């Protein structure tokens, strides 16, 4: 028996020895070893669990990463403008119907081939026709009547009608015409090339040496997928991750001294979206009452430690030109006014409602919890229904089976249209069933006009329309908090949801 005890003790000792190991075993990666190798590990919360073909990408998380791999004829700048990328130059005809792009000399694909005009034509046609399954059609391309490649470095596109925003669609990724492995082994022209993907584990990108522009400063970037927000923090603290975007203020506060925090904006319209076709939200008075009942400032203070920018319509501040600040305080926090409106609408004692929230988005979940508290003050009993993201997409978004929901809506490209078109009564993606004749008319006018200033004014009118009729209870554009390990710098924020790695570098 003594022997048995002894052997148990020995076993326990052995276990300890193995676990502690030789502390820093040679193969274990550390921030120091990565700095020496000029590589970093970036934490991301969502796997790229879909086709990697940029023309098929619907997930913002995938677009964010692959931004480093693909480019179009044009590409967005951090300021929100467009700059020539694969094209070195472009001309627009007098009647604004013909666009002529000249390709940059010697731009290479990651597979070594040179980009030709034919590739550009192929890429645009592929998105216009969208005959291949999974390709996301670009609506604006239905305006194209003709697209030609008169020589190897010229692309000429002819439109049926002038479109002030057409150039922003030229950010569509240019792909090699004769390559069919984009789904799993993507090839583009960006500063980084794709190396490998391990499902639910990691994605590896490597510096592309033959990049035409300013080369990337890092040699290799590994994206580590950590879907669990709780273990994400532990991974940051342990030294497994060097850079991570979209953190919450609470996470940032716990990071410790190893990290710097950069603050940008997420470029989302976060709101309590109301299904305008469902009682009681088919009543404008009720919707307005909700707007008065909510204290946005308090939401920011409670759930976001004060980070974030308040908004009052479907537009965020980063879109400087289109953003109308006066709408933010259109409905000041006023519980009395809210109760009065509810009484007018026939709900003197309030009512019960359900807030559907995709459970994997902590910011929205936190916001919803504060909303429940605030709504209770005016007699409205709100109940949170947490659903998986996939269920949210199919039930709430696609089939519009919901009463209210807290999410953030983003713009797929840098146009006001991307944010505002969805609330026209016939839009496919008008998931809140907003239906307002004035709004539809304003949108039609905005599309018809050739003058940029006039168009901007019309878009602002549309935003005001949404606010006045309280289409949704607008809250904020979330702050994008990025943790960067000390010794690294060069994070650039864009007005769209991307993570540009090309400028990131070690300081020492």
């Amino acid at each position, binding site marked *: 028996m003594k022997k048995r005890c002894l052997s148990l003790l020995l076993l326990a000792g052995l276990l300890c020895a193995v676990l502690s190991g030789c502390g820093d075993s040679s193969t274990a990666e550390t921030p120091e070893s990565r700095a020496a190798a000029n590589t970093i590990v970036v934490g991301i919360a969502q796997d790229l669990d879909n086709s990697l073909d940029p023309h098929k990408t619907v997930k913002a998380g995938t677009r964010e990463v692959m931004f480093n791999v693909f480019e179009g004829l044009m590409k967005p700048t951090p300021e929100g403008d467009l700059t020539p990328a694969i094209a070195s130059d472009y001309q627009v005809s007098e009647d604004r119907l013909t666009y002529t792009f000249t390709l940059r000399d010697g731009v290479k694909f990651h597979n070594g081939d040179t980009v030709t005009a034919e590739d550009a034509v192929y890429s645009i046609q592929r998105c216009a026709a969208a005959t291949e399954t999974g390709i996301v059609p670009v609506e604006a391309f239905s305006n194209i009547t003709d697209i030609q490649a008169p020589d190897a470095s010229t692309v000429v596109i002819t439109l049926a009608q002038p479109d002030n925003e057409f150039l922003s669609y030229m950010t569509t990724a240019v792909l090699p015409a004769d390559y069919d492995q984009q789904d799993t082994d993507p090839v583009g022209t960006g500063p980084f090339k794709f190396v490998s993907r391990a499902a639910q584990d990691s994605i590896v990108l490597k510096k592309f040496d033959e990049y035409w522009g300013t080369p990337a400063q890092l040699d290799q970037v590994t994206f580590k997928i950590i879907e669990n927000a709780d273990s994400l923090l532990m991974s940051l603290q342990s030294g497994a991750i060097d850079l991570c975007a979209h953190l919450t203020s609470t996470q940032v506060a*716990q990071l410790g001294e190893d990290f710097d925090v950069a603050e940008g904006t997420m470029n989302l319209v976060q709101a309590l979206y109301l299904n305008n076709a469902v009682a009681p939200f088919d009543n404008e008075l009720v919707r307005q009452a909700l707007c008065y009942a909510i204290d946005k400032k308090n939401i920011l203070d*409670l*759930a976001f430690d*004060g980070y974030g920018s308040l908004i009052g319509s479907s537009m965020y501040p980063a879109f400087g030109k289109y953003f109308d600040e006066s709408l933010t305080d259109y409905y000041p926090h006023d519980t009395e006014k809210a109760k009065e409106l509810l009484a007018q609408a026939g709900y003197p004692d309030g009512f019960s409602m359900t807030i559907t929230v995709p*459970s994997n988005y902590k910011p929205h979940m936190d916001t919803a*919890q504060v909303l*429940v508290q605030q709504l209770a003050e005016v007699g409205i009993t709100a109940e949170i229904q947490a659903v998986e993201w996939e269920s949210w997409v199919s039930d709430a978004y696609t089939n519009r089976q919901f009463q209210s929901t807290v999410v953030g809506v983003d713009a797929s490209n840098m146009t006001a249209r991307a944010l505002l078109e969805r609330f026209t009564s016939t839009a496919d993606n008008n998931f809140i069933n907003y239906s307002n004749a004035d709004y539809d008319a304003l949108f039609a006018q905005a599309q018809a006009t050739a003058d940029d200033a006039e168009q901007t004014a019309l878009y602002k009118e549309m935003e005001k329309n949404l606010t006045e009729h309280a289409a949704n209870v607008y809250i904020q554009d979330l702050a994008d908090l990025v943790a960067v390990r000390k010794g690294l710098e060069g994070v650039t924020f864009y007005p769209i949801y991307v993570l540009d790695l090309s400028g990131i570098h070690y300081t020492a």
Partner: protein
Amino acid sequence: MKKQMKQRMNGYLRAGLLLGGVLTALIVLGFFWTPYDPNAMGDAGEKFLAPSFQHLLGTDDFGRDIFSRVLKGAGTTFTIAFCTVAIGAVVGTALGAVTGYFGGLVDEALMRLNDVLTAFPSILLALVVISILGPGNKYNVILALGLVFIPSFARVTRTAFASLRDVNYVKSARLMGASPARILAVHILPNTAHVLLPAVTIGFNNAVLAEASMSYLGIGVTPPDASLGYMLSEAQSLFTAAPWYAVGTGLAIVLLVLSAGLIGEGLQRAERGVM
């Protein structure tokens, strides 16, 4: 000697009942009254307060009183675990009794089904059932977990019933013309108590832990009505800022399970003592 043993055995039972009683009293109290409204959010300055006499377990990231939330959460968890074990034990024992006693084709068929169900790891099965029923709802969690617990009860009782099938007192009861139902319920069931009772306490234990795991994976009970499991997973991301949140919630789970465990232990020993 016997008396002495009995006293010691009752020690566990007494400790378990005492702990269980205090916890149950607190939980019942929590249904009607808590020191603070468990969902009332404080001002920005009231976040992450350390434990004090005002807030026994401190406050969380919304400035909510953690002790009040633990009381409410424990209520949810207790209800779920209790109902789950009830479903599992009743249905499982019935299945185990029938299959163990009769054997033959029924046994074969049901045990195959049982094998199939056992082959799904419990969380996985719960995951599937929850996905079908729709997540977030307390009753769906109970139903899913209850279903998951049936096979283990059936397995345990089946073995017991099978081993008692041919013992003398059962044989004689059969000869005397007792109906199978009577034999199962009156003659065998009481004699499986030594297997069944620990299974119930372990079941309760497992149910609390399974609920915690499910909430951790995000398929359990929905906030703001938190269960202990959900709160613990939330507490993990706040571990550096408010370790008392994780520790307080974790401790609540541990105590709840511990009291059930001690009662089970005490019962088992008392049983053996009587034998």
